């Protein structure tokens, strides 16, 4: 039994259909519990109640980057092994990633207004997120512009590879370009804990919840794409008959 079995659309549909309700339930439980728990925590002594935006902001920002990485991996699998499910998963993930990026930017702006006194600052982190959004938009636009599905999958995969290199390059170029206002990572494996446990545990829960939420949305969207592909195949057969 290998993971490549799920490259078979029938197998993928059967398995994903079976686990989808559980993923949806898990995502709902984790996200709702985490957000409510986070909302009920006491205010931070300096940031006041605005600290609670973190429970939306950090998971969304984390997922925005992780989804691009997932698209990169899926694109590579498509280019190397030509599994259609992989290409469709990359296609399905892109709009979710773009929405996560927008959530990260908007919640950041809402937090930044009272805390930094500005909605927007050309800070390295903020700017690289804006650049990430541009890459998402370009990727989605290219998918929708090409009619032939296989060419679209190939070209977007190549774009994703080149885009990843340049998104990373922009990330560090931007660091060089302007000094930051954004604080460093609040959670980090190496440097110990810089965040009170009161906020940390709900945050972990919402991060898990957003991960599951992405998985659920991804499965639903990939299943839709596969069904659309089947529908197109049926229609083509109808036309020929």
């Amino acid at each position, binding site marked *: 039994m290998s993971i490549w079995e799920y490259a078979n659309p029938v197998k993928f549909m059967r398995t994903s259909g079976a686990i989808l309700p559980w993923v949806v339930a898990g995502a709902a439980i984790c996200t709702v519990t985490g957000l409510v728990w986070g909302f009920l925590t006491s205010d931070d002594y300096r940031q006041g109640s605005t600290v609670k935006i973190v429970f939306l902001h950090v998971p969304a920002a984390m997922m925005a980057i992780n989804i691009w990485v997932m698209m990169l991996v899926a694109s590579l699998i498509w280019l190397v092994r030509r599994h259609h499910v992989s290409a469709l998963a990359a296609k399905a993930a892109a709009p979710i990633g773009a929405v996560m990026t927008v959530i990260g930017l908007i919640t950041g702006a809402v937090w930044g207004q009272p805390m930094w006194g500005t909605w927007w600052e050309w800070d390295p982190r903020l700017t690289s997120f804006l650049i990430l959004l541009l890459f998402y938009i*370009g990727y989605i*636009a290219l998918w929708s512009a090409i009619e032939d599905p296989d060419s679209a999958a*190939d070209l977007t995969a190549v*774009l994703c590879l080149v885009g990843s290199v340049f998104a990373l390059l*922009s990330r560090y*170029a931007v660091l060089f370009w302007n000094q930051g206002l954004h604080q460093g990572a609040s959670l980090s494996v190496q440097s110990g804990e810089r965040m009170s446990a009161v906020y940390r545990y709900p945050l972990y829960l919402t991060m898990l919840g957003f991960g599951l939420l992405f998985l659920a949305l991804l499965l639903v969207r990939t299943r839709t794409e596969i069904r659309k592909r089947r529908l197109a195949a049926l229609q083509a057969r109808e036309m020929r008959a």
Partner: protein
Amino acid sequence: MIALLKRDLRLAVRAGGGFGLGVAFFLILCALVPFGVGPDSGALRPIAPGILWLGALLACLLSLDRIFALDHEDGSLDLLATSPLPLEGAVAVKALAHWITTGLPLIVAAPLFGILLHLPGAAIPALIVSLLLGTPALSMLGAFGAAVTVGLRRGGLLLSLLVLPLYIPTLIFGTEMIRRGQEGGSIATPLLFLAGITAGTLALIPFAAAAALRINLR
């Protein structure tokens, strides 16, 4: 390869506006900026590096669709793909031809436009070197974008959406270099970064662009 280069250059010259149009566009942009921000040299000087680089970027962008589109229409791109010359080489040559017809004239004209925008004389060498190092990367990345969108009927807008984000690192280091030249600081760091980006794109992008062309010609 040399024959292909000659052919592309000849086409660019004889089709009209190969060398001139990009520079004319650059001139118009530099002439419009003072209308937008005011003729005060104190206002123009700090933004001059950015304007010059943005102008180079846009002038380059406008001529990108010509790299492959015409050859795709009349079928010579298919011939190129089946010729003994590797498609990667053809892409590199076409990007070089694009650079000679748009990048090089811009570099020659840039000091003049720098003076128009009150760029101090000390920054002119940095301006020339930064454009000399940066514009080949612009042409190369543009060739990649053009290769991706070559089959599309209305690829122009999409092309700019795909290519402009890729230009960000080049733009950052290019303008930073002129700014440091303006302030009399050391330009070594942005220069090395810019050279690194250009060398990397020259080495790797032809493969990506050729892969995209093969997909489009399938």
